[in-house]
């Protein structure tokens, strides 16, 4: 078992006292920030990016691994203890979790979420460790034309398949692609869309874009619609589960993991679909169907596991192809680039130590998360009572600090405000943020691959179709885009399953 040995080597690297301390700090910081209302995992990672500036790549990755899983876990705590979920992936957790909390079973809901996240995260990370080298080996053979097709596929999937409005999805995507154009053209060195501003020649720092759109945009949007009356926070004791809770939780954990991982690993983006599917599945399989909608523990265990498994799955395309499929992955990719590390098929062979240490630290971070957070849950719950003016003032403070610290330039802070305005507009008009962020990151990669492919064919458009894989992907893409409307017309009924409709109206 080659992979196992490499992973154990990674463990050995990650298990020094210093690195363990970084993992613990990451988990604590990530949970702290993730628990705060209004902050999802992507924003947590973006906000905490500056604190890794002075660190070695390995240590900062270990820190990130902790922040990432911590942020995910923090988000689910929030959605269980408050009635309204912060991000779409926690919607399903919130339905049953909050009902459980209201019935005085907050401790059990938090426990099944935490242990389920641990189970799913551990299985998921192990799958990443086994799949990534295999995929990377295949990916080395992939030419520019197929790469271009893969990126196109993932953008179209994220934009057109997820989300409620295709038009808004594409608007988000093209805003992102336009932002991605800013800066010097890579092969000819000419400035594009800089408006003559010198500071823009290097392009826009993705940290500034992400923090602006996530943090500033969110804070301004919340300021415009701030809930003036305080929301109820349900007090919680130390999480624990009875024998019955265990018996009802372990199967949903495993099923949730099985659903979540493939969705995270395929470029279909996001945990929304698998968490929803897991919820529906658990409701169908449960022997206590009547409890669903009134706080069924299966309805927390399954979706939470699916959520975390898909969060782990996203590392497969990120590490093997250099392709981010979620907003958090996009921010992580940006973080890796600041260290001159370019994820992609050659990363596994160029810097194996780094990759295996990262994977090992994901496993460690996941374990620490469980060990640290179960006893600390009552303390995290108190965070939800921070007065809102100070909370959002703090977010704006750290966002500004992060942007300023990149280059110590006031220009970056001004740029941050501009993206904050974009983030506000995007929320006001219901434009999804994921395609936008992915557009900023994937757009320039796509252009590079497209020009590479067309250079080889001397500008002839056939250069984009000269690989069987590329053609297969275009066929798949056509099926995805054409099939749903056609089927809908033939059947005369919406393709959305009935249960989805029920859920939507119940909320």
């Amino acid at each position: 078992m080659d992979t196992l040995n490499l992973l154990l080597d990674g463990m050995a690297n990650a298990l020094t006292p210093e690195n363990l301390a970084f993992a613990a700090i990451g988990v604590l910081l990530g949970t702290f920030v993730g628990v705060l209302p209004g902050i999802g995992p992507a924003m947590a990672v973006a906000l905490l990016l500056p604190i890794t500036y002075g660190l070695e790549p390995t240590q900062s990755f270990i820190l990130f691994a902790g922040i990432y899983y911590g942020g995910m876990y923090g988000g689910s705590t929030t959605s269980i203890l408050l009635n309204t979920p912060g991000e779409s992936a926690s919607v399903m957790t919130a339905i049953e979790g909050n009902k459980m909390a209201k019935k005085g079973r907050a401790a059990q809901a938090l426990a099944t979420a935490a242990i389920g996240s641990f189970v799913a995260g551990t299985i998921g990370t192990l799958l990443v460790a086994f799949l990534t080298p295999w995929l990377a080996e295949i990916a080395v053979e992939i030419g520019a034309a197929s790469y271009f097709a893969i990126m196109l596929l993932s953008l179209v999937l994220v934009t057109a398949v997820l989300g409620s409005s295709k038009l808004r999805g594409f608007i988000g995507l093209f805003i992102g692609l336009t932002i991605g154009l800013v800066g010097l053209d890579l092969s000819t060195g000419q400035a594009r869309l800089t408006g003559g501003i010198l500071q823009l020649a290097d392009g826009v720092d993705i940290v500034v874009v992400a923090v602006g759109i996530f943090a500033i945009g969110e804070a301004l949007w919340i300021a415009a619609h701030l809930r003036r009356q305080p929301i109820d926070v349900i007090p919680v004791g130390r999480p624990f589960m009875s024998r019955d809770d265990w018996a009802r939780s372990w199967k949903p954990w495993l099923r949730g993991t099985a659903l979540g991982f493939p969705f995270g690993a395929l470029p279909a983006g996001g945990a929304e679909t698998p968490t929803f599917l897991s919820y529906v599945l658990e409701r169908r399989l449960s022997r206590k169907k009547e409890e669903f909608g009134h706080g069924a523990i299966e309805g927390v265990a399954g979706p939470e596991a699916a959520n975390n498994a898909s969060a782990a799955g996203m590392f497969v395309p990120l590490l093997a192809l250099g392709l981010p499929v979620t907003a958090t992955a996009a921010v992580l990719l940006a973080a890796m680039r600041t260290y001159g590390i370019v994820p992609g098929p050659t990363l596994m062979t160029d810097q194996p130590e780094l990759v295996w240490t990262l994977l090992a630290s994901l496993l460690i971070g996941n374990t620490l998360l469980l060990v640290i957070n179960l006893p600390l849950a009552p303390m995290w719950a108190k965070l939800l009572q921070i007065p809102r003016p100070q909370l959002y003032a703090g977010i704006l403070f750290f966002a500004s600090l992060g942007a300023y610290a990149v280059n110590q330039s006031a220009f970056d802070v001004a740029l941050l405000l501009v993206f904050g305005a974009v983030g506000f507009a995007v929320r006001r008009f219901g434009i999804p943020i994921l395609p936008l962020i992915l557009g900023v990151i994937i757009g320039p990669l796509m252009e590079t691959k497209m020009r590479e492919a067309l250079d080889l064919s001397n500008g002839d458009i056939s250069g984009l179709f000269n690989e069987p894989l590329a053609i297969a992907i275009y066929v798949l893409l056509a099926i995805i885009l054409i099939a749903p409307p056609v089927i809908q017309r033939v059947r005369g009924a919406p393709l959305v399953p009935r249960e989805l409709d029920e859920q939507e109206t119940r909320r």
Partner: protein
Amino acid sequence: MTTANGSNATEPIRVDKAQYGLAAALALVGIYTLVDARGLNVGFGDPVGPRVFPYVIGTAMILLAVLLALATARGDVAEGEAGEDIDLTSPPDWVTVGKLVAVLLLNVLFVNVLGWPVTGALLFAGCAWALGSRTLLRDLLVGAALSVGSWYFFYVGLDVPLPPGILDGIL
């Protein structure tokens, strides 16, 4: 994120006028992208050049702007993003947003002159005040602790010296 509040299809068409503004802005960005791309030179022996991508993006942007305008006229209404602290039933509070933007802008203007330890503290207190906090003195103290603390954290912990501004020599 949908919050179905039982709107029926038979209601009179409600036009979200602000969406025309968005469509116009998108169209302008698209046009600017095209104009900017026209000014680029395609090198000799470069079969694709730096223009193609912006051309595609700019054109698509204009097309999307037109589609959005059409959808708006047909009664397409944007649904604002929901969240833990968001109450979408109230009208937007532009005064608060304006105050926040003003505070953030002041930080941009003065951060290089006064330094982060000073402007950061004012930023925190200012934002808290804009959002409705009435404990100004406490906010200023918390802000000062945060900004000086973060300055030292970057200086000592991360080896990233942020300019100290007017507090040079004191910190």
